[in-house]
């Protein structure tokens, strides 16, 4: 089995005590005044979301640091809910007049009268699923530059056929404050880092293959002492070299075995999005109305868990101030639950599952995944491979996409091998897996005992909003999967 060179080290454990609260960059009392202004037309709920995010990035290209950059955005989003209607206004100007104006604009969604009332909010203790010793924004940029240099050297040193290396380190320290008219006031500091390396290898006759690897999470910078840039650079290089000389993928139905880890994007696409409550409420998802029904093979248990220690998709509180949660979505093949933000929960008579997320103050929250994974099964990974006479082993993946109405999803396989008589054969290029979510999950015939999180790479896009997510999967066998390729 082409083991990835990497064993992902366990992240540092979540520890208490909670860090001191970070004060919002607004004068005392202004948040409460904004809530009053937002409710001045008689809305039933208002919320103020304040954000300050500092991002640093270092990019290496063509063997030198191309640029080092940093940026800060801050702003406030005010949301007013009146029945099923939502008014939203945001401003990156933190000036009192500008913010009051935004609150009054959002208030216009409610058409009733109503006078200004006063609201009090009190800070609630938040859980702590990630703690970072020094905010990433305070780590010297020179150390960040060192990471990409080392990754570049390691990738080039792996094989002389590695011709291009692009390495990027990005981190963000984001503070959020959420206050609402129910009296909740939550604050969270969300650090997030990621090192990524992309390589191009050149083989015979000008053949070119690419490799990509990287990782990170809500972690201290010292994480890269164990998840070293050398590991990242070599793994990216290994993928590109391993697929040189790959044969064209054969198109048609095949048995596929998915390597553990990042292949969890299959779950994210095949079922995850379809279980987000906005799609359920609007009846645009093929999973609407299927609660309690079998939607997958009995071997399939799918969990979305915002509480995984230090994972990229984890949240102490969501962007509505609701604490992160672990939710069982599918249990032994039966649909158990959806992911709710507060608005979907209210309109459907449910409670929020801490799934209300947004890209920034410029966006309204909506139901989103956090870390989505398949619970491990009983099968030894070697047995899964051995059980397949002819098929495709999918070792590494690009991205994926889903149409939540007809359930069609694709995901791109960047490193794949033919399976012949239970053993790996030659590498295959250009394979894309396509299926209909519930059908593919009904065809899951073996689930490995090797639960594996992805290394911390994922960003999920929905309605133009990107949020960091985690995925995870043990080794899995899926029968009758359609493999798109060029060879008939």
């Amino acid at each position, binding site marked *: 089995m082409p083991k990835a060179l990497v064993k992902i080290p366990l992240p540092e454990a979540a520890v208490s005590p909670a860090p001191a609260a970070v004060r919002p960059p607004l004068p005392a009392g202004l948040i409460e005044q904004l809530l009053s202004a937002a409710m001045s037309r008689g809305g039933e709920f208002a919320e103020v979301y304040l954000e300050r995010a500092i991002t640093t990035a270092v990019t290496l290209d063509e063997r030198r640091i*191309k640029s080092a950059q940093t940026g800060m955005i801050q702003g406030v989003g005010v949301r007013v809910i009146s029945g099923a209607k939502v008014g939203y206004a*945001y401003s990156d100007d933190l000036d009192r007049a500008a913010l009051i104006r935004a609150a009054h604009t959002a208030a216009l969604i409610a058409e009733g009268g109503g006078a200004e009332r006063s609201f009090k909010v009190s800070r609630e203790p938040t859980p702590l699923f990630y703690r970072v010793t020094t905010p990433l924004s305070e780590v010297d940029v020179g150390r960040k530059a060192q990471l990409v240099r080392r990754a570049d050297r390691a990738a080039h040193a792996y094989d002389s056929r590695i011709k291009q290396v692009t390495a990027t380190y990005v981190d963000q320290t984001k503070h959020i404050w959420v206050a609402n008219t129910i009296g909740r006031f939550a604050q969270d500091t969300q650090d997030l880092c990621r090192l990524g390396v992309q390589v191009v290898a050149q083989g015979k006759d000008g053949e070119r293959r690419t490799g990509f690897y990287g990782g990170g999470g809500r972690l201290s910078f010292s994480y890269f002492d164990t998840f070293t840039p050398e590991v990242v650079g070599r793994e990216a290089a290994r993928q590109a070299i391993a697929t040189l000389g790959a044969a064209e993928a054969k198109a048609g139905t095949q048995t596929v075995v998915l390597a553990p880890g990042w292949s969890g994007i299959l779950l994210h696409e095949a079922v995850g999005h379809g279980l987000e409550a906005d799609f359920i409420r609007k009846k645009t998802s093929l999973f609407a109305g299927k609660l309690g029904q079998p939607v997958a093979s009995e071997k399939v248990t799918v969990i979305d868990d915002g509480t995984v220690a230090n994972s990229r998709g984890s949240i102490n509180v969501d962007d509505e101030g609701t604490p992160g949660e672990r939710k069982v979505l599918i249990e032994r093949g039966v649909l158990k639950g959806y992911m709710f933000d507060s608005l979907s929960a209210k309109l459907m008579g449910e409670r929020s599952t801490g799934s209300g997320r947004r890209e920034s103050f410029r966006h309204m929250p909506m139901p989103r995944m956090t870390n989505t994974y398949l619970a491990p099964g009983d099968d030894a990974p070697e047995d899964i491979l051995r059980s397949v006479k002819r098929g495709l082993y999918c070792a590494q993946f690009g991205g994926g996409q889903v149409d939540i109405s007809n359930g069609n999803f*694709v995901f791109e396989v960047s490193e794949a091998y033919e399976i012949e008589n239970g053993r790996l054969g030659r590498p295959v*290029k250009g394979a894309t897996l396509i299926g209909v979510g519930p059908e593919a999950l009904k065809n899951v015939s073996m689930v490995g005992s090797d639960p594996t999180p992805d290394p911390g790479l994922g960003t999920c896009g929905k309605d133009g909003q990107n949020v960091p997510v985690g995925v995870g999967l043990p080794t899995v066998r899926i029968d009758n999967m359609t493999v798109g390729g060029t060879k008939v």
Partner: protein
Amino acid sequence: MDYRDLAKKLVHRAKKKGAREAEAFLEIGRQSSCRVREGEIEDLTEATSKGVGLRVISNQRLGFAYTSNFDPDTLNQFVDRALQLAQAAAPNRLNGLPSPKDLAHRSEAGELFDPEVASLPSDWKIKASLEIERAGKAVDPRITTFDSVGAGDSVSEVVVATSGGLVDAYSGTYAFLYAVPVASDGTQLQTSYWVDYKRLFKDLDPPEEVGRQAALRALRMLGAKKVRSRRVPVVFDPLIAASFVDSIASAANGDAVFKKSSFLAKLLNQRIGAEHLSIVDDGLLPRGLGTAPFDGEGVPTRKTAIIENGVLRNFLYDSFTARKAKAHTTGNASRSYNALPSIGTNNLYLAPGAKTPESLIREVDQGFYVTAMLGRGADIVTGQYSRGANGLWIEKGELSYPVQEVTVAGDLLQMLQQLDAVGSDLQFRGSTGAPTIRFAELTVAGD
């Protein structure tokens, strides 16, 4: 606030603090949008936004910082921060802003700003969205719901100032309409979308038309099934053709070409397609959504033929990559204030041919008409193309039954050679446009 003055001040401060060259790029704007559901407002959003990015070059090193906070102390710190960051980067004698020669001959971009869009009453978008929804539902009772239906408008101003003395600005507007309906026949759900984005209000499609088109596209997919794997002629509708054109343009990115990370890298001035194949990027296309007088580093935009009558003619460059590749900038530095310039397209399109889209289909005995795709699919390094596809099966020149859960795959270079017919129906649903196109043979993978 006078944003030209602010831009100049930031550049001046950077110079004073030791930058050899500096450039400030500002974006200021306001946006509003709305969505409706079941004849009622679902949400209304109103916003103002602003931000500035500062690029400095000091000792041949590049530093970059951005901020959305314009208070004077923050701005001062931010200039210092950009200079500090430059020290972490490697010196490169190619670093620098566009040359005075590159910045000369300012372009005239025509109408970008429509006073009508800028002064639309705030309820226009509600009325328009309601009309879209009504028209979509009226098409057929099997249109059961919408993922979303909405409309909106945007007004923005871009200002650039450089240490070389350039100060330039433009304002632009756009308005948009969209619908994402869901059709249901009791067993299957199918969705589709239709959208229009235009700088001028009078160019925007009527809302009913957006609703109707979206509904028809979703409805005709009901009952979709897989087909058996085979190689057949494949027709892309204009929406899908536009995404194919985007893939080709990213392979013409001068940086990818310089690094030999593009399948087009070695093919300049060679024939890669038939006479009827021309792909053009035009930053000055009248009323184009991607039209602007200058690019993300102040360089005048222009019209650049990437492929002209089947021959690969030009790659796209910003000024840094052009210096590296010993080429000239083509005015294709694309950016927003929070990022460094990178090579992108302005208004990109595949030039229309003479045949009607119907005749492209009529000439096919058995084939696949693609109307939706899933996945990124195109790898410009290797030239591999493989995407999930939905659409309609063509039988004896007629669209017959809907198809889903298949992939369409090929090799991008071979696809260009296989592109055997171009329709006359060029349309833009954004800043990339294309007509209906046909490939002589691609692999469709299903059962």
